[in-house]
């Protein structure tokens, strides 16, 4: 009995030790074009492809909801992921993901200019 408990405890400790916490991240949404949104995701470390995808799926609902509220047409949402560079305060782009509606048509189209024209 005692050996079974020890085995279970060891397995549990190994599991806990092997687990990394859920990724921490913050996002910033920008309207880079009249129908394109850019979501800059600052992650605490480089992640797996699945984790990048899951973050995009989680955030997309809120991003689209906000776009509808402000009547921003959305043809494309570009997710860009940035992670800290070891030993510096800088961050580097580590991954990207582009989302488009399935039918390749915008969620909402007004085709009205809603951004200022600013030369670079």
């Amino acid at each position: 009995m005692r050996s079974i408990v020890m085995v279970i405890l060891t397995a549990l400790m190994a599991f806990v030790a092997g687990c990394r916490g859920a990724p921490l991240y913050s996002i910033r949404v920008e309207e880079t074009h009249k129908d394109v949104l850019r979501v800059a995701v600052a992650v605490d470390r480089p992640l797996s492809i699945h984790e990048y995808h899951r973050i995009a799926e989680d955030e997309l609902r809120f991003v689209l909801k906000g776009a509808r509220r402000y009547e921003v047409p959305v043809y494309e949402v570009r997710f860009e992921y940035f992670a800290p560079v070891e030993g510096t305060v800088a961050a580097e782009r580590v991954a990207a993901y582009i989302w488009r509606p399935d039918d390749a048509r915008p969620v909402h189209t007004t085709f009205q200019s809603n951004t200022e024209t600013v030369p670079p």
Partner: protein
Amino acid sequence: MRAHVRLLGLIGWLALPGIVASGSGCGLLYKHAHTERRFTLYSNRSETYLKHVASKVERIYEGLGAVFKVPRERLGHPTILLEGVDTDVVDFHYSPDILGCYIPFLNLISIESTAAPRESETTDPVLLHEIAHHFISTQWPAATSECWLNEGLAAALETSLFDADGFEFPLLNPELGQVARHCARGKEPLLRLPDLLDMSWSQFHDREHRERNYALAWALVYYLLDRHLPADMPLGEKIDALYRLDRGEIAGLEPKWIQFLRSFDLNGALLTYARDTGSATRRTARWAIEKLGQLRSGEDLRLLEELAELLDSPDFQVRVQAHVAFLRRLDQATHSYVLEHEVVHKGVARVKRALRDSNESRSVSLTIVDAAGECRRTQADWVPCLVDLLDSTDGEVRAAAASALSRMSAKPTIVNPDFWREGTPNARGAEIAEWRAWLSTLNDQG
């Protein structure tokens, strides 16, 4: 008790290769399987991707089979594992240690395809490399203990070019060629040829020197096939001669080989291929032009001059490839004086003409527009042309121009191709007017 555990462990280890090698074992580990006459593919990627790769693998077995002339039954029925998942996420940090491997005793090829988009050709060199190992180790089993031969020959064959109609073997590996030349011209003493010939598997694949060893192994095999053996000898016979060459004789070629490496004109070799656009070498010509646009080089002016001459090629695909390569080369030119050279000016004018030429075929226009959209340093040259194209009579060209402008310019625009294809002329006109006003503001600012 311990004896039983050991016995069970031993049985497990002995059974593992069998389980892995057998279809049922892989079937348990992978979602999809695709069996062809010569091989079985397993993968967790989509069945569409599996079929796409299967057709390539079939073609590679045909192409290499014609060179090696190994009876089919000797090759057995290999298992090919395509690792990776289908995803639209681009992971810039992704850098696998091993892109592929061939395990002779299991007749198993494993390919890492995570970084490969669904319809791309990025896995072609890895497939060619690993399938070449299959042929080499089947035809000449001793090659498995001679890393320079096995890896050098596979690296020469990985640049082979193929489509449904044919196969070409340039044998030139530009990336490894650059590394080999760098080693030969560097301050550190070059690895001695006898040492390269005698390297064990672990010495050859040593993490610190692996890249150098691959490059020198390719350089040796390329030298022997392309410079040492008779030029008129068919490739299959050359490979056979390579197996049988006396190793002492090869070691004795060291001074000539080093001389070859130090004077090797990689750009010159690519330019020779690029100019030879005959039907038997057209795949190699297009590949060489593409490489001339991609590779880092200190000879931008020489390459731009040569590429400019290909901009008017009567071969439609060479013309497209030359335009793309010219744009890329121009955008990554190391010295700005290159951009002021007369020949380069003429080339830029030629590309602009092609962009505005309504008689140019749609696929040429779309490809050039797309390539222009990737230019960062020379964007001032292309933006006015692309703005003009927003008014093109062809909706696809309008959409491609808008997409290119959205990538290269900070001015917000409508990217949605449906708008540019089908939007009302008034709405499009308003957007174009906005672009022209923005351009004139830029011009006024000087």
